[in-house]
């Protein structure tokens, strides 16, 4: 990353050891990463590659064994109001209706919500008139929209998303990807996204980070240079196809080379910038 611009979010030599019954497990091994303000970065990789550990340490919810995370140059020691989080399932509170769910962060913080802003977000995600519905009355996609509004309701400067659309069907997922991009273009919120879908990662991100498992390391980094707003037509181009395959090979290759105990070649950043 570099340049004179300070990183919005910076991870420096982050390591995390989990104590398990069968000894210590190195979940994250000296991972370093810098994310610029207004950047969308996806993290992909097989299970056990420490993606979630890395994201949760950025959120301040989980501490690190070594290294640190800086937000605007200051170390993160706990949850910050600057950071919004979207979880794997929508994680709505089933005993609260949609309005009360969105109000939840403000109740905890003891603040008054910005009603206009929330109404605009609700309109943006197509949830006008759904405020009094309960989560069980909503489809999975709509629940995740509510979660998105909740995460953005207090105007965080960073949005962390932990496999947010993994449980949705592919059509709903595509819609949600468009929605995230629209909201991004509107707010320019810095977004870090964990996903299992390389297509989703490419569609949304400025950069895709590939992680490898046991121990969790950053194995490669790919720039995605397509202009926004991106359309589904772009997703059908040769360039995207090639990039998808390269990333796929990186992930699979990582696992294969791990088995052979041979270190995998790492593609340099920006190799595909000419696409």
């Amino acid at each position: 990353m570099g340049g004179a611009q300070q990183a919005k979010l910076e991870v420096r030599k982050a390591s995390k050891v989990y104590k398990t019954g069968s000894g210590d497990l190195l979940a994250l091994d000296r991972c370093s990463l810098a994310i610029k303000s207004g950047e969308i970065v996806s993290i992909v990789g097989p299970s056990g590659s420490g993606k979630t550990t890395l994201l949760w340490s950025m959120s301040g919810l989980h501490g690190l064994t070594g290294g640190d995370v800086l937000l605007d140059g200051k170390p993160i020691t706990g949850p910050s109001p600057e950071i919004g989080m979207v979880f794997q399932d929508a994680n709505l509170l089933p005993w609260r209706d949609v309005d009360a769910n969105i109000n939840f962060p403000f109740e905890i913080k003891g603040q008054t919500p910005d009603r206009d802003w929330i109404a605009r977000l609700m309109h943006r995600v197509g949830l006008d008139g759904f405020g009094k519905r309960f989560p069980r009355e909503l489809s999975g996609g709509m629940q995740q929209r509510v979660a998105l509004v909740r995460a953005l309701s207090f105007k965080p400067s960073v949005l962390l998303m932990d496999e947010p659309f993994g449980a949705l069907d592919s059509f709903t997922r595509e819609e949600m990807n468009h929605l995230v991009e629209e909201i991004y273009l509107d707010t320019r919120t810095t977004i870090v996204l964990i996903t299992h879908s390389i297509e989703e990662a490419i569609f949304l991100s400025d950069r895709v980070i590939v992680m490898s498992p046991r121990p969790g390391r950053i194995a490669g980094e790919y720039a995605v240079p397509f202009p926004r707003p991106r359309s589904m037509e772009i997703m059908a181009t040769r360039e995207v196809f090639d990039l998808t395959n390269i990333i796929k090979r990186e992930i699979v290759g990582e696992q294969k080379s791990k088995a052979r105990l041979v270190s995998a070649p790492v593609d340099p950043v920006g190799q595909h910038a000419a696409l």
Partner: protein
Amino acid sequence: MSETDAIPEFSKSKAGGGGGVGVSNMSALAGGPGIKSVGEALAIILTAVIVIGGAEILLSAFGVPQYVMPKPSEIGRAFVTDFHFILPHLGHTLVELLSGFAIGASIGLILAAVVTQFPFAEKIIAPYILLLVTTPMLALVPLLILRFGFGYTPRIIAVALAAGPMVMINSATGFRRVDQGKIALARSYGASTLQIFWKIRAPMALPMILVGLMIGAIFGLLTAVGAEMVGGGFGLGNRLTSYSSMIQMPQFFAVVLILSVLGILIYILFFLIGKKWASWEA
């Protein structure tokens, strides 16, 4: 949000899709317990008439003596003529039930909330709670009467001892249902331990707490009546022993009827509370 206008179709299709989901769920909600149509209501009433009327006819036809099984009409008459006499006893039983339940349920609830926060303490205390749940508290009533006399005190203690552990054990199950995701959510907004308890743990435990309260109240009623049968000169349980010893069977069954209605009222009360506050967990 200027882009909003640029994607009207997108927003509209969403709202429409959501509407469909909502409607299908609303009809699913109406499918819960409750009378749905006039026909259903008629069938329920008709069945009741057949059962009661059938009993009346059969008891007369076979000449079953009153001391074996009084006819529904006789029970009904006794209910009306003796109600003014039974009413104060009902009051006594309710005082014992309500005060015993209030004491037992509060202690049980607080213990459950505190103990589940400390898994180690829970392991130590669990066998005793289980012992309290499985031991019929009626067994202690003679002892309590010996110590506290024939007044309210031994009965209230017995009701509290019967209801408390039931509330405690069910509430503890509720409080133990920890959803780490929801706690992480609250923590990500900087929630304190107390906020997490009141805004996440307590609402999540509520359905189980209500189950515990209902079972506790019904066990409390059983214990109150049982304790009254053991000793003392008042209460519905005392009426049962007194009427049966005098072979006043219509009056006896009138009291049984009141007890059944009490039990059903307890059930309905908690059902309605649950419907209002815990319907999210269908």
